[in-house]
């Protein structure tokens, strides 16, 4: 075996070090339970914490579906869009993040996100799977239950798993922005830090009674919150956060060599199509799974998801057909994904026919963002992570404020604009806060990483392609 390359070892040890550091500081930081401002975690009464197995079956399979979204789904969708020499690079990013983010989630991510605590961040409650994993209680194996009585109940392990799959796909989405030029070691450290500093706080803010939480008992914003954002399955937490960060990323890392000059067509649109189809299927787990049980709401979210995807898959290529003469496969796939992104925050709160409208709007607006806007401002968002997720997510968050209806939510008063509610204002505030937060933290992170590790591979490595330069492999050897 050869000698250990010091630079390589260094770039390997960096992420490991970062992770250890954070884990340890998180542990020590929260060594004592936070005294101020505790939010009582909604738990089922001690008496009979139990769960319905039909709900549970649906949550287990939903978790599997959401993992499938990252790979094969996103790996194929993104992999097909890059040039051949970078296909493994982009697939590796997806696959490696499945490993990395999972360990982060297991050690401290879930605890920071869903561990209760103040309005900013979670606690050490679930560090290292404490209070999540089974334990003997009076000699009986007992699985801690995550429940809100009347709303849902499941083993906390399952809740952790389901939510953990979101933690994987979110940074993976960002990879679309700096595809074909990002240094792999830097990507690893960036994802780790971004997950910790952007995702966990935002997730806690929206879904764990934090700064942007909505209360489903009083049907108003949570006591701690500055705005109650209705975010069913991650419009804010997943798509806005990743989409905005993607924009910052692609601006700060700069354009690909030869951008605007050399042709950079997708090397394998069959992969992209297959990936888009898998995203569509997996999104049922993402959205209908976010009902947290096999409920009527799950059926509603499933329908909204399906309809929005369908509408998007018609709107985008329809516009191309009208304006350019031909409907493209890439347009059809992109439209479906745009529709899916847009319906994400709304899926469990709107009627199916509204979902069709949202899908049409998403297809049209994202089409505009990915063609006209991008060309105008000339940033190189390689795979349109911002154009689809940032724009589509923002649109979805706002349209949730328009279409959310008490017929679906069950709130006593009106919600969305169409029924005369005022939700839209809250949605706008929450969206603004999320955008600002994600943008600022991403910016700072990248600045630091730029001076310490460097964001980009060398020119030569970029010309060679990431497959060989970062991983020493080739995607296809067809001889």
């Amino acid at each position, binding site marked *: 075996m050869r000698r250990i390359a010091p630079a390589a070892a260094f770039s390997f040890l960096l992420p490991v070090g970062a992770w250890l550091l954070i884990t340890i500081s998180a542990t020590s930081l929260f060594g004592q339970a936070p005294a101020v401002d505790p939010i009582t975690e909604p738990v089922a009464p001690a008496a009979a914490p139990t769960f319905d197995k039909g709900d549970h079956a649906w949550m287990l399979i939903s978790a599997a579906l959401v993992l499938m979204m990252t790979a094969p789904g996103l790996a194929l969708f993104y992999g097909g869009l890059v040039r051949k020499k970078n296909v493994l690079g982009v697939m590796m990013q997806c696959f490696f993040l499945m490993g990395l983010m999972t360990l982060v989630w297991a050690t401290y991510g879930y605890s920071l996100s869903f561990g209760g605590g103040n309005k900013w961040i979670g606690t050490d409650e679930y560090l290292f799977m404490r209070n999540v994993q089974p334990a003997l209680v009076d000699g009986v194996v007992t699985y801690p239950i995550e429940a809100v009585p009347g709303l849902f109940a499941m083993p906390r392990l399952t809740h952790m798993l389901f939510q953990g799959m979101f933690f994987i796909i979110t940074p993976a989405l960002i990879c679309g922005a700096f595809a074909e030029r990002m240094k792999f070691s830097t990507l690893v450290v960036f994802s780790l830090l971004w997950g910790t500093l952007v995702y966990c706080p935002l997730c806690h803010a929206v879904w764990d009674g934090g700064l942007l939480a909505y209360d489903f008992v009083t049907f108003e914003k949570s006591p701690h919150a500055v705005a109650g954002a209705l975010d069913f399955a991650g419009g804010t937490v997943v798509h806005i956060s990743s989409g905005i960060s993607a924009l910052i990323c692609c601006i700060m890392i700069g354009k690909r060599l030869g951008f605007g000059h050399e042709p950079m067509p*997708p090397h394998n649109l069959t992969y992209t199509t297959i990936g888009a189809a898998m995203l569509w299927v997996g999104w049922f787990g993402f959205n209908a799974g976010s009902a947290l049980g096999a409920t009527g709401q799950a059926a509603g979210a499933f329908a909204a998801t399906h309809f929005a995807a369908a509408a998007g898959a018609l709107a985008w290529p329809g516009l191309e057909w009208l304006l350019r003469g031909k409907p493209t496969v890439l347009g059809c796939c992109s439209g479906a994904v745009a529709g899916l992104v847009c319906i994400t925050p709304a899926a469990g709160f709107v009627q199916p026919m509204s979902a069709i409208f949202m899908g049409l709007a998403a297809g049209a607006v994202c089409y505009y963002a990915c063609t006209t806007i991008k*060309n105008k401002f000339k940033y190189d968002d390689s795979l349109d992570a911002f154009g689809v997720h940032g724009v589509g997510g923002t649109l979805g968050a706002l349209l949730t404020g328009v279409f959310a209806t008490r017929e679906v939510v069950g709130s006593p008063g009106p919600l969305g604009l169409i029924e005369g509610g005022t939700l839209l204002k809250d949605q706008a505030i929450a969206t603004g806060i999320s955008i600002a937060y994600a943008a600022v933290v991403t910016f700072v992170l990248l600045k630091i990483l730029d001076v310490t590790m460097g964001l980009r591979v060398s020119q030569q490595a970029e010309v060679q392609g990431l497959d060989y330069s970062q991983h020493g492999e080739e995607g296809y050897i067809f001889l």
Partner: protein
Amino acid sequence: MKKIEAIIRHFRLEDVKNALTEVGIQGMTITEVRGFGRQKGHTELYRGTEYTVDFVPKVKLELVVPEESLRKVLDVILRTAQTGQIGDGKIFVSTLDEVLRIRTGENGPDAI
């Protein structure tokens, strides 16, 4: 010994090959190539980014023939590869110094 290189359209290959075997040609070699010429390529549009494909796929036929067959073979190719549309391709003829068959080491016309 002459070497004929013909750049032709993909979908004429089958006919050209058959016509050539009919006049007694027993061997040839083809390569996938892409050509740039009067026949313009096309523009593809991927999410608003135009991508101009200047080079269109063609097939290059290489065959080595003894001097005396040259005209006959050229005729056959000209006839069968023609569609009359821009982009039918070219034929280049050059002279070889030597031809060898690897299997036997034979040299010259016998090697073809």
